[in-house]
C-alpha cells in the first residue's frame, strides 16, 4: 500500500515498528468495520436517512495506525479517573471514525493532523507517536495542548489537538459513561416543581407569591 510505503520512506532508517507494519492488514480493517457496525440504532428514520447511514458505515476511513494513534490521544485527553472511565472505555475512537465519515469536513484536519503529529515525533524521538514511550507522548502533547503558550511552529499541532480534544470530549460526554460523569440527570418523566429549596437558598433567590400562586406545582411526596 502506498500509504505505508510513504511512511516507511519518511522513517529513513528509523526502525519500522509493529503498529505501522500491522496497520494495513486487510483483516484488521474488517475488524474495525464490524466493530463500528456492532451497535444497532433504533431511531425513527425516513428512507433517505437510512440510505445515507448505510452508505456512511459501508466505508472505513481511518487505517489501523491512525485508529491506534486516535485511541492513545483520546485516552490522554480523557483518562480513567476516580469518577469515570476513559475515552476508549466509552468507545470514543469508534465515534470519531463514524463522525468524520458523517461530517467529511473533519477528515483532512484529522488525517493531516495525525500525520503532522507522527512527523513531529519522528523528528523529536525518531518514532511515530504510538511507538514513543508514554513520557515522550506526554512531552509531545504538552507542546500542543496549551494554545496560549505553544511555540509558533507548533500552531498546526495546536489546531489539531483542539479538534481532537473537542471530538474526544463530545464523544465521551454523550456516551453513557460520560453523561453520568458530568451529572446530567434528566431525560426521564418527572414533575417539575421548581428549583430545589436548598439551591434557591444557596443563591439568595425565592419564588414570588405570584409565581407560587400561578405556576403548576406537584405534591412533593408523590
Amino acid at each position, binding site marked *: 500500500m502506498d500509504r505505508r510505503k510513504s511512511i516507511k520512506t519518511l522513517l529513513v532508517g528509523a526502525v519500522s515498528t509493529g503498529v505501522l507494519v500491522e496497520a494495513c492488514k486487510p483483516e484488521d480493517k474488517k475488524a474495525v468495520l464490524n466493530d463500528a457496525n456492532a451497535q444497532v440504532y433504533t*431511531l425513527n428514520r425516513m428512507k433517505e436517512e437510512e440510505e445515507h447511514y448505510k452508505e456512511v458505515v459501508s466505508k472505513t476511513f481511518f487505517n489501523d495506525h491512525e485508529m491506534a494513534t486516535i485511541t492513545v490521544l483520546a485516552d490522554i*485527553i480523557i483518562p480513567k479517573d476516580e469518577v469515570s472511565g476513559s475515552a476508549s472505555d466509552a468507545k470514543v475512537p469508534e465515534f470519531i471514525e463514524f463522525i468524520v465519515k458523517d461530517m467529511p469536513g473533519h477528515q483532512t484536519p484529522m488525517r493531516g493532523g495525525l500525520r503532522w503529529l507522527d512527523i513531529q515525533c519522528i523528528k523529536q524521538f525518531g518514532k511515530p507517536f504510538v511507538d514513543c514511550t508514554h513520557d515522550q507522548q506526554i512531552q509531545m502533547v504538552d507542546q500542543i495542548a496549551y494554545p496560549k503558550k505553544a511555540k509558533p511552529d507548533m500552531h498546526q499541532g495546536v489546531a489539531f489537538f*483542539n479538534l481532537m480534544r473537542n471530538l474526544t470530549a463530545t464523544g465521551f460526554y*454523550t456516551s453513557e459513561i460520560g453523561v453520568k460523569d458530568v451529572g446530567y440527570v434528566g431525560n426521564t418523566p418527572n414533575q417539575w416543581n421548581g428549583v430545589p429549596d436548598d439551591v434557591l437558598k444557596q443563591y439568595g433567590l425565592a419564588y414570588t407569591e405570584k409565581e407560587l400562586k400561578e405556576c403548576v406545582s406537584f405534591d412533593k411526596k408523590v
Partner: protein
Amino acid sequence: MGDLQVKKQPKQYDAVIVGSGAGGGMAAYVLANAGLKVCLLEAGPMFDPAKDSCQLKNPWESPRRGASTKYRPFGDFDGCYWGWEIDGEPYTNSGDTKWEWWRARMLGGRTNHWGRISLRFGPKDFKRRSIDGLGDDWPIGYEDIKPYYDKIDRLLGVFGTNEGLENDPDGIFLPPPKPRLHELFIKRAATSIGIPVIPSRLSILTKKINDDRGQCFFCAQCGRSCKVYGDFSSSSCLVIPAIKTGNLDLVTNAMAREVLTNKEGLATGISYINKDDMQEYQVSGRTVILAASACESARLLLNSKSPRHPNGLANSSNVVGKYLHDSTGADMGGIIPELFDRKRYNEDGVGGMHVYTPWWLDNKKLDFPRGYHIEYGGGFGMPLYGFSWGIENLNGTYKIKGKQKEAGGYGASLKEDYRYFFGAHVGMAGRGEAIAREDNYCEIDPNVVDKFGIPVLRFHTKYSDYEIKQAKHMKETFAEILHAMGAVITWGGDDGPENNYGLHNPGNIIHEAGTVRMGNDPKRSALNKFSQAHDCKNLFCVDGGPFVSQADKNITWTILALSMRTSEYIVDEMKKRNI
C-alpha cells in the same frame, strides 16, 4: 415512464387541502368535524408522534450523538423531516439575496418540532400602518380574531399568565411551569434594568385537557414531538383526530403541482405527483384550500396559469409572492460564573423557556418602527454533539475550584473542567417584526424546475435600516441583561455594522409570511378578510400566506386562529350555497 398518464380520483370531495401543518391541519379538523368530505394532500410521509418520535432517546442512541444532518438540520432526534435543503427540490436566490427557506415534508409539517411559542397578536399588530405609516393595516382587527384565539386556547391548550398587557392579550391559560435557576437569574437581572420578564406562553399541557392527550412529563424534548401528545402538533392534535371522524382521506407523499380550474375560472381540484409511484394524479373538490406554507402556496398559485388566470391563480392584483417577510433574529450568549460547580438536579422542564420578555418599549422614542420579544435558554441541557466544544477558550479564563489553569490541557484536570462549567451557560434570542415590503418577494424562476418538473421559486429580499437598527438594539439589550446578571459574554458579542449586528439571514427564523396577503382592495391583495381569493371564490389560503404583517409574535397561533375562522366561514358559505 413509458405510459405517463394522469389518474383521476373518482371521488368528489367538498374540500381538497394542500399541506398538513398548522393551517391545513386546522382546516381538515374543522371541516371533517362539520361532516364535509375532505381530502388532505401532504408532500411527505405519514408521521405519528406516538410511534415515530425520538423522545427520551439518549445521546448515545444516535450514531452522530444528536448532530444535525441535511435531513434533520435541528439535530438527529428532531421531529422534522428535511429543512434547509431537500434532495431534488431546489430554489434559487437572485443576486445577493440570502433567503433561507425551511421546508418540512411530513404529516404535521413543521409543527412536529416547533418551539410551541403561542402568542396572540395584539390590537396594535393588526393596525400598524395607522400607527407608524409603514406597510398596511389588516382588513380585520383583534376583535375579529379573539373568539378564535379563545377557541384554540381551549381546544389545543396553552400555558401562560394573564398580565393585562395592552398588546400581548390575555388568554385562556393553563398554569405555567416555575422558572428554572438561570431563568430566575435572568428575571432578577432584567427587571432590575426595567426589562419585564413574564411566564412564557407555550402550547404544552401542564394539565390534562382531554382523554386523547397526555399531560406534559417535563422532558424538555418538544422539538422531537411528543409521544403522549402533551404538546400541540398538527399531526397529533388535528389530523389524526380528524381521520377518526371518517370524513378525511389523507394522501401522503403527494406533491402538489397545480390548482386545477374550469372555464369559469373556479377551482376544481389539485393535480399532484405521487412520490411513491411517480405517477400523476388529480383530485377534485368543491373548494380548494392551500396550506402548503407561505412560499409553497404562492408557488402553487403562480404555477396555476390558465386562460382565465393568465398571471397565475388569484393573482390579478400581481401581489402573490410579494410582501414576503420573516421574523428578524439576533442572539447572544454567556456564562454565569456564579453558577460554576452547580448542584446537579433534573431541570429539564418543558421543551423551551419558562419565561420570556414581551416587547416593552415605545417605538416612537426609538430609531426603528417595530418591536421584538426575547427568548431565553440555558441550564443543564442533555449533552449532545458539540457539548463543551471549545473549552480551550474557557478553562484558562476562570479559576477552577480556586486554581488558575493554563487554557486547553488534557487529562483528569480537563475532566474536572467539563464538570465545573456544566449548566452555567445562558443564551438569549430576539425575535422581531420586519416590515412587509412589496419589493421583498418570491417568483417563479423561469429556468429551473425540481425533480418533478415543477418550476421552482426564486427569491429577492433585502433588509432595510429598520431591521438592522432593531438588531443593534437587541444586541445592546442582551449585553445589558448579561452584564446585570454578572454573566460574561461568550458568543454573539462581536457583531457590528459590518455584519448587520448579527441579524440572521431572512428566512432563517422560519416565520415566513405575507406572500398571499389579505385585504379589502382586490387590486392590492390576493385574498379577502376570510382568506378567500378575490378572483376565485372557492379558493382559500390558510397558512402564513394571508398575513399582512406578522408582529413580533411567532405566527403559528395566529395561523391556527385564522384557519379556524376561514374553515367555519367555508362551512357557512357552503350551507348557504354561496360556494
